[in-house]
């Protein structure tokens, strides 16, 4: 274990680990000087616009481009047949996930443009390329699609039923995977023997991701080197390069240069390859000039992958003392019309991994199907199964407590894993390495002024309002770290560049990564740069996703720094004419032990640039390209307490108080971590109270704009009270646990539990998300009627 965190300077250096340093990129972004993909304009570039299916399901008989191709400014129109003829491959889902009978995922790899059938409204069938974007848009409207509409199915449960419209001949029952984990017989017995069973049917509503920056891509091709370049917003250029090169273009990865500048949000949605990227790259080659495509917001609603959309039955078995004896989650996940690289995971493995949460649970079973429907593909969305699973568990606990007449906090306390039981081998196969769950809940309860609730409730009642309070404990299993690059380059101008293959899409990686390097090597914080978005610079890169970036890149930077120190010691020994063993590294400087002869890393780098006369066997510079191997998942956890008021006459819900205590392990930058928690909570609030992607029976997206799809605003939330109770992870060198998705995992259950708590006196037992005013009002009316 590295000592960087326990360093006694911890918290004392202005830019060290633990300091709330503001984001280095913000001055530039706030001045509008960011470099997003749509800001990229290349010489001679043409513009592409996609032609999309207006039908949710249909046979594609033909595409008539005659009129469109003579429209002003049109350069070319490419269809699926053109991509086929060029020998382009398909986008695949390589997950090793197995079904209950051991079979692999059943699906048909996706071509960039549909050829035989269209499978959702928005399914791209052609790209029109013209001199200007407006000309391309006008011409795209002239492309005639000959489609025979087929019956559509948009709901996962319905799609899995016999007789449902089938999306693929080779995928029976529209089922990509029929997943099962757990000992069914034992779980059945546990439920039979339980003294109490709680059962909830829960919809996890479909979300339109709403990244602030729409997707955009610029493709170019250099005939001399036969190399492609793609400028695109994504979550990791190394992965994007490999996917496009190996799966689609059948070329060496080096020939697929992927470059990402600033990214205005992704939440999982921009992680994978999309048809548009393949189209602009291929078009650039065919036309011999760069081609740019930028979505508009209406396009984003249809073409960006959606999130969530699960339909589950969650059941909890308890003994007479309220001890949990088994958890069972069964149901359906809607994956839309095509699989992404990760989409079957959310309703299956990720639900399993995260449902266990902070509780002692002898038995768990998850049996769920990932099902194709005639809807926009669904992919990972902030939490990717983590918020969903924690939501099921916490709603079950709250409901069980009410049914059994046990205080909900007390019920949690009886079942929470104690610090003395850690390391804890959970029934879902996870091994918890650290955590103090009861203390965290206790602190959150205290922070929320638990005892003052009754008075606040009485005061609300005087104003005709119903007050409720809800708890959301959560534990997330972060994505394990695969290979990650830790590159440190000492530049000619004195800057020190970190090169790593995670990718900042709004989180603010530059600052915390620089804090880690600054603390470890003592190089000036202001001179540290960060490169992530250039595949030509990377020798490895796992991208960002699953709340792992600080663990991956943080560890990679620490290990790379150790190599810098080793190199530096050798050089310093030569400079000081002493043995390597006599050199110590402390406070950013190499020192001849026991003397006052020191040289800092920065000084040594400068001397090397000036030209040191070094023997053959010594390194010429301090720069390092290192690959950090792997680290297992971490288990960020915490407890959120939400208090809200319901206006019974209108059903309007107003969040009044919100407290949380979290364990993110070692926190490199508390300012950014708190910001991540805030954003996650508000995103969760959106799903809980407002957001819902609705399809009609023909598969048309009815919520196709912000007129019909509500996202939360600043005025919808109170100030949050944030506290940390950190128990550093033992499984990665920093001790960090990852915080990017935790806000959602805590807020869905705390908000929905609080809402049901407010309405429980009227007889309301459960409300599905989103709890819109009308839905809340209707629930009150039907409870009154009952």
């Amino acid at each position, binding site marked *: 274990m590295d000592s960087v965190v326990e360093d006694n300077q911890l918290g004392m250096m202005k830019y060290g680990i633990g300091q709330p340093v503001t984001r280095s990129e913000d001055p530039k972004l706030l001045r509008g000087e960011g470099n997003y993909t749509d800001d990229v304009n290349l010489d001679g570039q043409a513009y592409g616009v996609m032609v999309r299916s207006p039908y949710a399901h249909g046979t594609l008989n033909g595409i008539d481009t005659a009129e469109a191709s003579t429209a002003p400014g049109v350069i070319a129109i490419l269809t699926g047949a053109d991509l086929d003829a060029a020998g382009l491959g398909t986008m695949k889902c390589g997950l090793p996930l197995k079904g209950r009978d051991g079979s692999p995922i059943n699906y048909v790899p996706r071509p960039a443009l549909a050829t035989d059938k269209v499978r959702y409204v928005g399914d791209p069938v052609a790209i029109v390329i013209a001199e200007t974007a407006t000309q391309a848009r006008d011409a795209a409207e002239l492309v005639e699609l000959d489609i025979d509409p087929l019956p559509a199915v948009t709901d996962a449960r319905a799609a899995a039923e016999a007789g449902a419209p089938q999306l693929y001949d080779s995928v029976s029952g529209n089922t990509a995977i029929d997943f099962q984990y757990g000992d069914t017989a034992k779980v059945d017995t546990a439920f039979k023997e339980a003294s109490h069973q709680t059962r909830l049917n829960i919809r996890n509503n479909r979300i339109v991701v709403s990244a602030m920056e729409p997707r955009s891509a610029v493709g170019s091709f250099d005939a001399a080197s036969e190399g492609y370049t793609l400028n695109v917003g994504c979550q990791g250029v190394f992965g994007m390069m490999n996917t496009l090169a190996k799966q689609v273009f059948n070329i060496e990865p080096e020939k697929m240069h992927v470059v990402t500048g600033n990214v205005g949000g992704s939440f999982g949605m921009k992680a994978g390859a999309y048809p548009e990227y393949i189209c602009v790259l291929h078009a650039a080659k065919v036309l011999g000039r760069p081609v740019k495509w930028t979505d508009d917001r209406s396009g984003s609603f249809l073409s960006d992958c959606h999130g969530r959309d699960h339909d589950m039955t969650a059941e909890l078995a308890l003994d007479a003392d309220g001890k949990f004896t088994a958890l069972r989650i069964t149901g359906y996940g809607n994956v839309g019309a095509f699989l992404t690289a990760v989409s079957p995971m959310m309703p299956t493995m990720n639900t399993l991994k995260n449902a266990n949460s902070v509780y002692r649970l002898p038995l768990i079973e998850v049996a769920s199907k990932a099902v194709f429907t005639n809807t926009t593909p669904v992919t990972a969305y902030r939490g990717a199964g983590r918020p969903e699973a924690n939501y099921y568990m916490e709603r079950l606990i709250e409901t069980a407590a009410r049914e059994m007449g046990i205080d909900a906090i007390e019920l949690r306390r009886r079942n929470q894993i104690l610090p003395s039981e850690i390391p804890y081998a959970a029934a879902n196969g996870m091994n918890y390495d650290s955590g103090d769950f009861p203390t965290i809940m206790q602190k959150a309860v205290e922070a929320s002024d638990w005892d003052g609730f009754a008075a606040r409730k009485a005061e609300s009642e005087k104003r005709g309002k119903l007050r409720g309070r809800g708890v959301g404990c959560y534990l997330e299993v972060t994505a394990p770290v695969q290979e990650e690059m830790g590159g440190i380059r000492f530049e000619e101008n004195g800057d020190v560049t970190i090169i790593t293959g995670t990718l900042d899409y709004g989180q603010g990686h530059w600052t915390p990564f620089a804090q880690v390097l600054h603390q470890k090597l003592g190089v000036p914080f202001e001179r540290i740069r960060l490169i992530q978005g250039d595949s030509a610079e990377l020798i490895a890169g796992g991208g960002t996703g699953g709340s792992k970036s600080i663990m991956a890149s943080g560890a990679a930077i620490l290990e790379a720094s150790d190599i810098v120190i080793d190199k530096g010691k050798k050089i310093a020994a030569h400079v000081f004419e002493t043995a390597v063993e006599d050199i110590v590294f402390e406070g950013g400087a190499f020192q001849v032990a026991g003397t006052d002869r020191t040289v800092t890393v920065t000084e040594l780098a400068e001397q090397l640039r000036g030209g040191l006369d070094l023997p053959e066997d010594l390194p010429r510079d301090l720069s390092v390209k290192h690959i950090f191997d792997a680290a297992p998942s971490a288990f960020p956890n915490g407890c959120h307490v939400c208090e809200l008021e319901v206006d019974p006459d*209108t059903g309007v819900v107003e969040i009044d108080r919100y407290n949380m205590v979290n364990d993110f392990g070692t926190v490199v930058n508390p300012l950014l971590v708190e910001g991540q928690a805030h954003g996650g909570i508000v995103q969760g609030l959106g799903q809980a109270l407002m957001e819902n992607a609705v399809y009609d029976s023909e598969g048309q997206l009815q919520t196709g704009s912000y007129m019909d799809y509500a996202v939360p605003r600043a005025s919808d939330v109170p100030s949050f009270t944030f506290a940390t109770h950190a128990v550093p992870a033992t499984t990665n060198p920093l001790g960090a646990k990852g915080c990017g998705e935790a806000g959602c995992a805590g807020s869905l259950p705390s908000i929905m539990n609080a809402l049901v708590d407010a309405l429980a006196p009227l007889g309301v037992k459960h409300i599905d998300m989103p709890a819109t005013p009308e839905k809340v009002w209707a629930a009150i009316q039907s409870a009154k009627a009952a």
Partner: protein
Amino acid sequence: MTDIQYVAPSTLDEAVGAYAAAKGAARILAGGTDLLVQMRAGMVKPGLIVDIKKVAELSAIEKTPEGGFRIGAAVSGAVLEEHPTFGKVWPGVLEGLNLIGSTQVQGRASAGGNLCNGSPAADSIPGLVAAGAIATVQGPNGRRNIPVEQVPTGPGKTSLAPGEILVSFTLPPRPAHSSDAYLRMIPRTEMDIAVVGCAVSLTMDGDTCTAARVSLGAVAPTVLLVEDAAKALVLTKLDDASLDKAAAACSAACNPIDDKRGTIAYRTKVAGVLLKRTTAIAAERAKGG
């Protein structure tokens, strides 16, 4: 794309002349917060734009000889907000207009545009209807005055004849202890814009309501004047029974368009709820003033 002509005449006669001459190919431009959005979306494609903001009468705020107010149709919410006395006399009209959009939008958006755009959910219109405002309209055949509630005839439709321009709104003089209020309910949710807007204008004599006008937005194809609700309030002390009666009248007046998700029952109920809340605010203001 065809060319668009733009004119910004300084007299009303020129504006009417240009507008009428274009025979339906022209559009009036006030703040443009509806028009420009609709043009960008390709919903309207005018050959001529007649900008009316240079016409003095359309941008003026004046006191009438009778002691009321006359507001030019193109006056923006931000300008009206700055008027020294208007907001004291008609706080409800002002709050309706300045609920529109955001600060930027309010710098441009006019009540005239809000009315002529013909949305049933137009936020400034219930306040004007409750105020008993009269719209002055001028066209090739001269000037006429009509109550504001008679201007909209359906979503996106008005009773303005071809070539007619809305000139101004005239609000009557105000007896002592009168005031008004506007509340809207926008549960920001899928499938809904404004669910209900409610404006109430009252005159009080002590605790007794001596005059009332009630208007609802977003619950029918046009903004409604709800006379039965007003009747239920007049000559009462705004006690619970009277308020219930007025609320019931509001619910009864509702004729919402969309019942896909049960919104009819909800909108209908909320209209009554808002009536009570708006009346309470207006009464409070009237007693204070």
